[in-house]
């Protein structure tokens, strides 16, 4: 079996940002933009984001992953996705 390495972090960041821009209808988004308390990431957009990330990276984001620290910024989401993809590859 060929082991697929996890995507590099900036690749993941680009994909996360692209997903967010599309979902939120924005043209730019800083990696440190606050998404949750600011209301930028709405409830419905969040459901869409999770579905997109699960499909794109073949990962599963469960209820235990739904912590503020994992979704506060695009960078935080990138860290979560990177950890998930690494765990999937290692598993």
């Amino acid at each position: 079996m060929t082991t697929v390495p996890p995507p590099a972090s900036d690749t993941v960041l680009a994909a996360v940002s692209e997903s967010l821009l599309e979902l939120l209808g924005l043209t730019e988004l800083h990696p440190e933009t606050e998404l949750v308390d600011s209301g930028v990431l709405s409830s419905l957009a969040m459901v869409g984001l999770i579905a997109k990330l699960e499909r794109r990276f073949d990962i599963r984001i469960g209820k235990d992953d739904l912590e503020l620290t994992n979704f506060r910024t695009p960078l935080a989401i990138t860290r979560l996705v990177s950890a998930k993809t690494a765990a999937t590859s290692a598993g």
Partner: protein
Amino acid sequence: MSETFALSGCLPPDVPEILELQDALWHGEEHNLAYYHWKYRDNPYLDGRFSVLARDGSGRVVGMVGVFGSRWERDGARFTLPCVTDTIVVPEHRNSPLFHLMLDEAARRLRDAGIPWLLDFGDQGAIPAMLLRGWKMAGPWPLSVVTRTGDPFRPGWADEPVRTGTRSGVPISVATGDEHTIAAMAEVASRVPDDGRVRVARDAEYYAWRAANPMADYRYLVAGDEKPVGFLVGHRFVLDPADGDTPTTIVECEADDPDVKADLVDVAHDLLPGRWILLCTQDLPAEAREVLLRRGAEISEPTGRFALDGHLPTLMLKPTGAEPGAPVPPDLAEPGSWDVRGTPGRAWR
């Protein structure tokens, strides 16, 4: 998002503005005030003191989170827990933090009153965002959907002849939500043994209050001759047209034994109106599940994926920060804590 909101409780002088705000949710002047009074003023467990209203800088009401009382029991001890309902935000503030600000305010008020949990059976699309803000999730639970073939709209509900259950041989009759039916339901529910989980406290007071819901069209089936041995309640939204393509949800199904429960489910799928019949199958006995499968039910099991499970019933719980004291158990956030054997729908609402 720099706009600030004034958050307050819902007081009697606020009612006209609340009704205007909720018009989009409750659909129609005729029903709005009756529903508001039923849900908050006439609730036997809690008045509307923990509901939250939001006003913008001009003083206009722009959002509401209703909080009503629900009654639960475990190991013979009963306790009231507040439940979120009737949440609404005006269009220009949707997708803003206002909804969560109001929820947080309701939780803060409950914490200050020493109430440890806030429940929600509401909008499934909000679940991930609620989890981020410290809510817990019990569920989701599986759901059966039976699509009716042919014409599912039988006229003359009250004139339906008595059926005989094919498994149990017990007669099953249609009923209205009168005091006899309410007494029969409370009697059957009182015989269901406690299994150590938390369940809805179902007595005559509860059923009488729920039967008075002016926004619900309840359809009742009662099993048994002189002694009731089971019952089932189907729910439709009262403003749904009688022949409309809308679902009917089985919100309660209780019986002394599984065969009677299966017969009630079977007869319900013959008699209830509605293009689709919905039934949460969590805790449903195998006998009743067989009936559903024979009738071509599509049973959606939880997948663990939010995008796929959004239509499944889920119970959300927010720990307010108040210490749980007896008799409220501390482990409410555990999925196995909840007994929904007889209340497969939103019977508690």
